[in-house]
């Protein structure tokens, strides 16, 4: 960074000097042309036009040629310095040694300061020295047409003072040039340094800001880890050093001093019964470069046991070499305990459920067996008795037996529906309805007066729980038969069923006694019976609705007392293959 800074600084100085050079060059253009024009003006006095054009022109040509040919180099500036000296000599000559023309050297010297390079004074000094020496000597040796001064005679003292003053001028101009340059450089450096300091300050502030953000993020991470009881770790497999987060140590109830950052230190905490499988699991993950996830019991310093869930993944370098394993550990002791409790509760529930099922089944069987024995005897008696009254009594007895039997079947149906799993299988509507119709034909003596008609349209296989489906239809159809209208000329039950890929829609219509409007909402309630005289248990329609719910279907009812009842059932097709 420092080197970059220095090179940048150097570039800045270069650019600055380049600007000075360009500005000076522009000024010099005016000065040089003025010098040349000055020569032309002076030529009027002593008719020195040839000198003005020849010498002045050569100086101009020398300057611009050098500048054009060597634009990168500063040689042209030295040529300029020489040229100015020559202009001085030219002017002195043109004005026949007019002493004031010597000042041109001083003007030139001052002009050269603009380049801020003291060395540019040297060519000028050399030209002046050579000119003074040569022309002074030649004039005083009496050579015609050589002009150095208008003084008839110049003593050594005057000459020395002349030289000393000239030297002071040149020296001073050189010094100023040098100082200006130094001053500019220092100024640039200072500006630059200030910029650098500001930049550094800004960077420091930015770093401070970032590190604050970083600290906040880190705090949040730690807090999140603490809340979730999740610690993280990273295991460098090359060095066998494991980094662990604060939460990791908190879960393990150990300080970093008590638990070395190694694999072995962690393995020492593991319950000895889990050690083999954990070792195998980790080795497996490393060998196969696979992610890892296992639950393990770990021993706390106070000998208590925690269950943790360790999860991790492998990091592989570009060449496929395993570099590290990193991941998390989570304290799942509480969850594990809850799971165990839940499992136990589930187990108990399952047990008590199946006990209940067995109970319901055996009760229903044990109730039903003697009931049917009774019915056997009643049947025989009714058949064989000579007594009209006895036969009548037997018929009444049979009615009660049938009601009780029906009730028992319904309790069984209810228990089956409430607890059993849904078993999806195909349903053949026609077969099932015929079966039900045949079963119910024997239901009661009076059912022979009820005509049952079927209209089935099934195009596709229909999938649902066959047992439950049958319970629904059986209940509804037997209700339709049971509550037929004795006053009707011809009682009927019309069953229409239609099944497609989505739904089955079944309509059961009768011309029975019907349900008064105010009861229609309630008939699906448990143990609800429309009248005390009805022979039902009050469970039938309740079971129907419960079962329809289980099959995710819908049931609706339309009824008018004395006219009949219409039931609509919609059951979805569970198209499982």
């Amino acid at each position, binding site marked *: 960074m420092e080197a970059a800074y220095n090179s940048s600084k150097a570039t800045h100085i270069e650019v600055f000097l380049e600007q000075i050079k360009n500005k000076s060059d522009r000024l010099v253009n005016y000065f040089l042309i003025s010098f040349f024009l000055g020569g032309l003006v002076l030529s009027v006095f002593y008719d020195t036009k040839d000198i003005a054009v020849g010498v002045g022109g050569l100086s101009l040509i020398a300057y611009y040629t050098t500048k054009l040919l060597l634009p990168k180099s500063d040689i042209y500036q030295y040529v300029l310095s020489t040229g100015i000296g020559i202009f001085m000599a030219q002017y002195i000559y043109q004005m026949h040694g007019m002493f004031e023309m010597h000042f041109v050297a001083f003007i030139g010297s001052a002009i050269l300061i603009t380049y801020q390079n003291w060395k540019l004074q040297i060519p000028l000094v050399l030209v002046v020295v050579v000119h003074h020496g040569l022309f002074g000597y030649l004039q005083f040796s009496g050579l015609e047409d050589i002009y150095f001064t208008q003084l008839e005679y110049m003593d050594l003292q005057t000459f020395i003072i002349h030289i000393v003053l000239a030297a002071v001028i040149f020296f001073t101009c050189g010094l100023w040039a040098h100082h200006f340059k130094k001053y500019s450089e220092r100024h640039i450096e200072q500006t630059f340094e200030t910029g650098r300091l500001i930049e550094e300050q800004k960077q420091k502030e930015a770093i401070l800001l970032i590190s604050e953000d970083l600290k906040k993020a880190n705090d949040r991470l730690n807090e999140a880890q603490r809340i979730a009881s999740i610690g993280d770790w990273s295991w460098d497999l090359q060095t066998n050093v494991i980094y662990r987060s604060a939460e990791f140590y908190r879960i393990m109830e150990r300080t970093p001093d008590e638990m070395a950052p190694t694999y072995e230190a962690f393995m020492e905490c593991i319950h000895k019964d889990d050690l083999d499988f954990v070792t195998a699991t980790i080795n497996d993950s490393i060998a196969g470069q696979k992610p890892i996830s296992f639950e393990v019991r770990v021993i706390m310093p106070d000998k208590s046991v925690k269950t943790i869930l360790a999860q991790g993944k492998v990091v592989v370098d570009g060449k496929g070499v395993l570099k590290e394993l990193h991941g998390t550990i989570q304290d799942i002791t509480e969850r594990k305990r809850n799971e165990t409790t839940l499992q136990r509760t589930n187990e108990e529930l399952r047990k008590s459920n199946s006990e209940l099922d067995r109970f319901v089944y055996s009760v229903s069987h044990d109730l039903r067996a003697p009931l049917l*024995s009774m019915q056997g005897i009643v049947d025989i008696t009714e058949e064989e008795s000579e007594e009209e009254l006895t036969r009548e009594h037997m018929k009444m007895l049979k009615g009660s037996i049938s009601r009780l039997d029906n009730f028992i079947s319904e309790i069984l149906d209810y228990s089956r529906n409430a607890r059993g799993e849904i078993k999806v299988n195909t349903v053949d509507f026609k077969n099932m309805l015929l079966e039900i119709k045949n079963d119910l034909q024997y239901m009661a003596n009076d059912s022979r007066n009820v005509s049952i008609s079927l209209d089935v349209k099934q195009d596709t296989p229909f999938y649902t729980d066959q047992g439950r489906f049958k319970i629904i239809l059986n209940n509804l159809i037997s209700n339709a038969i049971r509550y037929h209208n004795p006053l009707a000329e011809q009682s009927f039950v019309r069953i229409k069923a239609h099944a497609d890929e989505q739904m089955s829609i079944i309509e059961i219509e009768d011309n029975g006694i019907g349900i008064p409007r105010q009861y229609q909402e309630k008939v699906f309630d448990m143990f609800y019976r429309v009248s005390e005289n009805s022979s039902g248990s009050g469970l039938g329609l309740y079971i129907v609705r419960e079962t329809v719910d289980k099959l995710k279907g819908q049931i609706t009812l339309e009824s008018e007392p004395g006219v009949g009842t219409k039931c609509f059932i919609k059951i979805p097709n569970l198209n499982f293959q």
Partner: protein
Amino acid sequence: MEPFKFEKVMIVDDTTIDRYVVSHIMKKNDFANEVIEYDMATKAIAFLEQNYDKPETLPQVIILDINMPEMDGFQFLERLALLPEYIKQCCTVIMLSSSLSQTDHERAENNPIVKKFINKPLNKANLEEIRSLYFKAVGS
């Protein structure tokens, strides 16, 4: 024409009344010359195992209950299955039960030895059914 009368019918049921009802209806309807009753499946199977080589002593129809102590109807059928094939052909096995269990029904219907599952109590119409099942089985 006089209806066909079986030589021998066996009833296996632990309930006295149920055995009585069946045998009574059979007698009343002239169903068989002899009705032998067993209150335990173990005794019934023992009889069959002892007499399997004497066709004249074997029953032509067996009325079998399901729920019985010690050995139930299905265990009886397992033992029966071990006996020679001709016994199963000349004995028509009918299951007569008060069970409402779907499983019992399915097991009975899927058992090749069982010709029919009938719900208790037995009635006159059932007798006719048993007759025709018997003729279908023996093929005459």
